[in-house]
């Protein structure tokens, strides 16, 4: 069976009645089932992404509480408030939570929410797998935090260096929990990455060739590819660690021919790209926000895209700069110093393009832009201290000190959290249909900005003053008290800023003024549909004829001819986005949830016995059989294009 789809001109007024009928039909087909079951089974990219975002911010709050506890402990020298055993669990959980359970998931969640809207399609490519990924992430995170609550939280750092994390020096279950649950939650990251890549490359609306793709979509595409290449390294490494601990292999045991440095190479081959996996989506936020409020296209779109891709490649070539203190041959030092410094060039290109965009634009100062501007200043500081730590001689002094703590918080909070909070304000109207309060948005920015600098700037000085990382206390006469007191005071201000921000979000959800479709006058396609978008995103899939489609004065034709009685989407060519075929997506199903439960049972049992792998596999076999049991009609129908 074949039918005809293709661009037709915008609907004539007489066709409004037909549109109403189509919308009703689409709503019947695409809406998520109501109630608790609907919550478990949802196949909507929007509801899964919102859940992801809320869960990630929940973990952010937990990680933030841990940070506050650490600041409390370090406020006074030789404090006995928190003992070393608990403190080590706290900083391990803080790092693991912020990296694995907050930063990466929240960025991917924004991608899952926004990418289908920005490229003009109805859903992500594999809606059930999307739901599966969320449950894996949630269960993994909950298990990790349950372990922490039971005082068996991991305590060897988020980097879990062997031999400290090996069976000889960390008996008990703590490191097993880390090694297995990190592998587990990374499955969710991989799932989201696959979703984003396939969705971006195969489901863009007609006309959106690669060179017209919004920069945010480019950023998510590059990020997703990085996830796919980086995550296997940590999954292999943590699985090897789990095997060393559980089934007596000796991958990392020097006494039996294993190697302690192998762990570091594998970990940082993942660990360094991880930073860019968090940072690149943030650049996508900034590009979108800057372009919107400068009221013009980004200067140097091709340069921006190439910078993103270059960052994606270079991000994999500098993991050794985390290992300079290990001792390297001189040539190796020069190579990895050069690679680490070189990545400043694509970052520089992006910063300069944003500055040029602001220069050439007509700036409308609104709260989301303020967060983006704060980002530019803080990220430049973080980038410069990054260049400092890239130089081997200097890194030998700075490595593993509070200087590095300061550096990566400037990069991760300044470089990723600031744009993220700006993005929350920016897209909140789209997600909930209400406008955030402008004044609260600005006030929360300034409090957070001041609090952030007060907290983290002194840490540079603490590092130069000789304070190593991951110490639960320091001596009274070490000269480190003042810096720590200032940092702790700053943490109070920073927390206040975040709380005002969250209050703004809460207020918006209840009382915010109605937003309308495009309250900011932005240009990407998500603003072409209602706020919040209907379950099917667009009544008729849009087409585009250039970058910045909503700023174009041209009439935008829409796609008609897609079936409204099944979940049908248009698959297009990967480069030119010319229509290729119609494809039927899966709807809500409880099997992804059950499969996630089966996998969780398997991994938790495997903490105690290798039989867990067998048990989990058998359970998963049952649920996967249910998931993939053939039903109904074939999924593809070829498309005949109308010129």
């Amino acid at each position: 069976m074949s039918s005809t789809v293709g661009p037709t001109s915008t609907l004539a007024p007489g066709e409004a009645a037909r549109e109403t009928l189509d919308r009703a039909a689409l709503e019947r087909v695409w809406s998520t089932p109501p109630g608790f079951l609907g919550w478990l089974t949802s196949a909507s990219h929007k509801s899964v992404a919102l859940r992801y975002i809320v869960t990630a911010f929940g973990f952010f709050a937990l990680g933030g509480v841990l940070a506050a506890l650490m600041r409390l402990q370090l406020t006074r020298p030789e404090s006995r408030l928190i003992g070393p055993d608990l403190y080590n669990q706290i900083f391990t959980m803080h790092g693991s939570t912020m990296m694995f359970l907050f930063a990466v998931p929240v960025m991917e969640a924004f991608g899952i929410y926004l990418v289908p809207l920005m490229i003009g399609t109805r859903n992500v490519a594999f809606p059930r797998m999307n739901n599966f990924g969320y449950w894996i992430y949630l269960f993994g995170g909950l298990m990790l935090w349950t372990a922490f609550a039971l005082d068996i939280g991991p305590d060897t750092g988020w980097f879990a260096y062997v031999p400290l994390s090996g069976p000889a020096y960390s008996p008990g279950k703590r490191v097993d929990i880390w090694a297995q649950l990190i592998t587990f939650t990374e499955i969710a990251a991989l799932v989201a990455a696959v979703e984003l890549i396939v969705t971006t490359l195969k489901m863009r609306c007609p006309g959106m060739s690669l060179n017209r793709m919004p920069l945010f979509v480019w950023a998510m595409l590059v990020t997703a590819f990085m996830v796919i290449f980086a995550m296997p390294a940590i999954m292999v490494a943590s699985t090897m660690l789990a095997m060393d601990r559980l089934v007596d292999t000796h991958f990392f045991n020097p006494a039996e021919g294993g190697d302690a440095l192998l762990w570091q190479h594998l970990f940082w081959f993942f660990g360094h790209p991880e930073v860019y996996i968090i940072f690149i989506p943030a650049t996508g936020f900034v590009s979108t926000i800057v372009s919107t409020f400068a009221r013009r296209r980004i200067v140097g779109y091709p340069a921006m895209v190439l910078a993103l891709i270059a960052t994606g490649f270079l991000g994999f070539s500098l993991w050794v700069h985390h290992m300079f203190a290990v001792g390297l041959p001189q040539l190796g030092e020069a190579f990895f110093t050069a690679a680490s410094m070189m990545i400043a060039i694509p970052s520089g290109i992006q910063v300069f393009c944003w500055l040029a965009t602001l220069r050439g634009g007509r700036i409308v100062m609104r709260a989301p832009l303020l967060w983006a501007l704060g980002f530019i200043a803080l990220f430049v500081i973080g980038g410069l201290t990054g260049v400092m730590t890239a130089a081997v001689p200097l890194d030998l002094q700075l490595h593993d000190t509070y200087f590095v703590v300061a550096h990566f918080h400037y990069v991760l909070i300044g470089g990723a959290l600031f744009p993220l909070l700006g993005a929350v304000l920016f897209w909140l109207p789209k997600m909930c249909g209400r406008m955030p309060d402008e004044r609260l948005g600005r006030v929360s920015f300034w409090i957070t900005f001041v609090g952030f600098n007060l907290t983290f700037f002194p840490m540079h000085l603490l590092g130069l003053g000789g304070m190593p990382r991951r110490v639960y206390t320091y001596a009274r006469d070490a000269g480190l008290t003042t810096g720590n007191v200032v940092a702790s005071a700053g943490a109070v201000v920073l927390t206040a800023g975040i709380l005002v921000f969250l209050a703004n979000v809460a207020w918006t959800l209840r009382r915010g003024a109605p937003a309308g479709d495009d309250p900011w006058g932005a240009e990407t396609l998500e603003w072409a549909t209602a706020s919040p978008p209907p379950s099917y995103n667009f009544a008729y899939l849009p087409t585009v004829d250039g970058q910045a489609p909503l700023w174009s004065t041209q009439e935008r034709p829409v796609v008609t001819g897609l079936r409204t009685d099944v979940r049908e989407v248009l698959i297009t060519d990967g480069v030119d986005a010319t229509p290729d075929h119609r494809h039927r997506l899966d709807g809500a199903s409880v099997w992804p949830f059950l499969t996630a439960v089966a996998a969780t049972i398997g991994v938790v049992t495997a903490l105690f016995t290798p039989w867990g792998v067998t048990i989990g596999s058998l359970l998963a076999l049952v649920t996967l059989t249910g998931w993939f049991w053939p039903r109904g009609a074939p999924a593809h129908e070829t498309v005949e294009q109308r010129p």
Partner: protein
Amino acid sequence: MSRAAIVVAAVACAACSGRMPVLDPGGPQAARIATYWWIVFWLSALILAAVVAFLLHTLAHRRVAAAPASLVEDTRVERRLALGVAAAVGLTALTLVVLLVTSVATGRALRSFGGTDPLTLEVTGYQWWWDVEYWDPVPSQRVRTANEIHIPVGRPVLVKTRSLDVIHSFWVPGLHGKKDNIPGHGSSLVLQADRAGTFIGRCAEFCGVQHAHMQLLVIADQPEVFDAWLQAQRRSAVVPTDAFARHGFDLFMTGPCALCHTVLGTPAGGRRGPDLTHLASRRTLAAGTLPNTVGHLAGWIIDPQAQKPGAQMPGNAFGADDLSALLAFLGGLS
């Protein structure tokens, strides 16, 4: 805001660099690194100031946006913006080349120090203390000590770092950058003190529950003072003649102490804990956790876990008299 921050930073750096070992070098290696630091610092400060100034200028002179966004662009403006970006990127690349070349040059310089006759030390990290051995071709002339390193001013010191348990990192910021102690891998660095003084060293790699209390002291002395110290360290302990201290000696040898600690010239030959042959000559106890006074030593022996929770040393239930005798013996280990 950020410009203010950088001014604050500069002032703060100037004000307290005396307290900052990284910027208050005591030897040529640390001095070389500090020089490089100041090059990078001022270049960075310049770049940050330029970016922030440009941003603030842009915001201060922004055009008012009345009309909605449009895709109509003035080609001359676009070309000027593109040229500006290109120039900034070019400058960035140039700066990075400068930093790379100076970094490599600094690295080469650090490697070139060493001299012909360095003093050779083997520093082994343990959870959570440092074992130090002064190497000598004649085995009987080697000296073993713990948590305190004496070096002669002006002579290069080759430090070989190793570990037999987990990864540690040997770091004396006043003298040089850090070098990891990795089980299964040997590594080394050359440092040198150009002035007499005490430099604090710390373990810089997270190594478990008492990572925070794993310090060591590097004491740089004039060569003749150092030689005298080394000679003194070569002497074995003598069995005390005083009856009270002799009782302490017996307690040490028959009690749990000798299982883990060595006192040269006595039956005590344990290697689990620090060598105590010259305990009384050291300034600190428990790897820099406590000053070495009789009171602290008594408290440490009775209940190490109170001071350093998780430390490998168990508590010891000595009566008051026994403890005093033990302290008298240990006090004689100078």
